[in-house]
């Protein structure tokens, strides 16, 4: 089957509850190419799941139109709406929604029994077995969902989606309840599957690593509005605004608000906490509309720790955390914010100066 493109035009969605209207998505336009692996990122409650529901047809947008392939799935203006089961998408629900009365085997086989072109029992069994093996749950086929652990349930939910070859995969945090190693395995399997079958995939995740390694492109959503769409490296390297900058990366980029001014021949960013000397090379990149009120961004790994006086600003490290191979140093600031520095070695002293790697400094309008 040819992979399908997905096209959203000016899609908006509000829920009408007893307490009034809750606007969730506003004016979303996206153009996802056939065979693309498209990742949705955004803070909790920003509308990612809702967006997937709109595409799958489980919810109806309040405005706008959605096309899957060359078929219009929904167009509010033209009053077109295609039922979910005709859209031929596979959706992994964030909440799994396993069929409690069916065994794992039956859960996974279910989509296969609904195909227009009937397939034989044997080949269903074979497919289910293959899928289960891929997800490492082949020993659990006889169980009912209630007898599974959280991660096992999640894998069954994935299994139900990938067992057939839909035009579109929609996955809502499919790996959130898996341990790191399994998640890595699964990630590789999904990527492999997706590339092999060339199925357009829209994927919601909170995991940095997943977003970066899986996605052909990433869209960052905030409060129901798209903030940036781009290749992983782009979004990471050239975030469009402080929100994206602060959201992508773990630990996130340090965002320092202040006013840019000249002082003693040096360009500095000044705020209540002190003055940050901006490296000369970076000064050229300042492209903010209002220098009095702008944001400077620098990632924790792009800051190096040196002896006091040597760097761009002198600070006191408050807390150091060991995160396995690296150390995170926290510098608490007055307005209950903090700067984080990531370093391979543990800082030897608490009184240090920070040096910002100039080519990684970014400036934003707030």
């Amino acid at each position, binding site marked *: 089957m040819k992979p399908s493109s997905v096209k959203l035009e000016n899609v908006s969605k509000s829920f009408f509850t007893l307490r009034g209207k809750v606007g969730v998505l506003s004016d979303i336009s996206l153009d996802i190419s056939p065979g693309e692996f498209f990742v949705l990122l955004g803070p909790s409650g920003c509308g990612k799941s809702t967006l997937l529901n709109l595409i799958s047809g489980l919810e109806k947008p309040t405005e706008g139109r959605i096309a899957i392939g060359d078929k219009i799935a929904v167009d509010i203006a033209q009053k077109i709406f295609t*039922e979910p089961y005709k859209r031929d998408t596979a959706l992994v629900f*964030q*909440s*799994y929604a*396993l069929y409690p009365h069916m065994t794992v085997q039956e859960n996974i086989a279910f989509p296969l029994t609904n195909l227009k072109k009937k397939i034989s029992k044997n080949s269903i069994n074979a497919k289910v077995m293959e899928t289960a093996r891929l997800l490492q749950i082949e020993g659990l086929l006889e169980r009912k*969902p209630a007898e599974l652990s*959280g991660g096992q*349930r999640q894998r069954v939910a994935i299994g139900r989606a990938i067992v057939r070859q839909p035009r579109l995969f929609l996955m809502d945090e499919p790996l959130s309840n898996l341990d790191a190693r399994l998640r890595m395995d699964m990630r590789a399997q999904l990527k492999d599957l997706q590339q092999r079958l060339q199925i357009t995939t829209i994927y919601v995740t909170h995991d940095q690593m997943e977003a970066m390694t899986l996605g052909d492109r990433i869209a960052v959503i905030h409060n129901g509005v798209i903030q940036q769409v781009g290749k992983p490296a782009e979004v990471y390297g050239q975030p469009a605004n402080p929100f994206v900058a602060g959201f992508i990366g773990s630990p996130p980029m340090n965002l320092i608000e202040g006013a840019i001014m000249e002082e003693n021949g040096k360009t500095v960013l000044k705020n209540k906490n002190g003055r940050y000397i901006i490296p000369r090379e970076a000064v050229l990149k300042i492209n903010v509309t209002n220098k009095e009120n702008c944001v400077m961004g620098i990632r924790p790994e792009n800051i190096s720790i040196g002896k006091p006086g040597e760097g761009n600003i002198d600070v006191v490290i408050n807390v150091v955390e060991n995160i396995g191979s690296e150390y995170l140093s926290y510098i608490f600031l007055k307005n209950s914010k903090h700067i984080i520095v990531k370093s391979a070695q543990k800082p030897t002293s608490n009184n240090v100066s920070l040096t910002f790697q100039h080519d990684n400094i970014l400036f934003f309008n707030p």
Partner: protein
Amino acid sequence: MKEKTVKRVLMTLGAGLLTFFTLLPFIWMLLVSLSSRPDFLFSGTAQFSINNYINVLNNSSLHFLDYVKNSFIISSITAIVVTCLSSCAAYAVSRMRFPGRIIIPLFVLTMSMFPPISIVGYLYRFFSDTGMLNTPIALILPYIALTVPLSLWINMSYFSQIPLELDKAGLIDGAGRITILRKIILPLALPGIFSSFLLVFIACFNEFLFALMLTIDYNAQTLPVGIALFEGLHGEIPWGDLMAASAIASIPLVVLSLIFQKYIIQGLTAGAIKG
């Protein structure tokens, strides 16, 4: 064909069938209640008026309103008590572990399988000995015993649809079993609880044999018995009065069914658990 179209056609057919099915005899009943003679279709000479209603309500020796009142009191008390007893029991059976959790509901079910005629003699003696004959109690107690099985089993099946995790969460949150039942299970099983309430209520409202045998006069007799008394010695039936009485008697149930709608709510457990 489109799913929507199929659905709409099916629904229209179903609604038509339902209306026809339930209303035809009922409308016939109303017509008879309004006419002066039951054979009006053939004779064509009947007059239509609300005389029968007036007659039923005004005739003091009929005691019609007493019967309605008794029925209402007896059915309500029974239904409330049964709902309480059987929700507790159903909770225990469906969500707790103890020896007998299989056998007790079976036992209770078994107890609902006896032809009532075979136990009415005993009950008569019992209530007569205890001086309770012809009091509402004499009906309420056996009614409770007769309807608990139904209510227990219905509640059991509704309770078992509520995720067990919610009880666990309740236990963790420091709630005792009673609190869990009251604050978590009951609200979630409300459609079920209410439908079993309704079924019990109506069952008591309609019960005839016990009501006949265990009561003596309008101080405790219920509507079905009262209506049965309309009939004459040789089987003369004042059709108009009888139907008028039945029509009036169905008013409380219509009210009840309006309340029923309020409690039939979709998807109470949505959002509870992940999985």
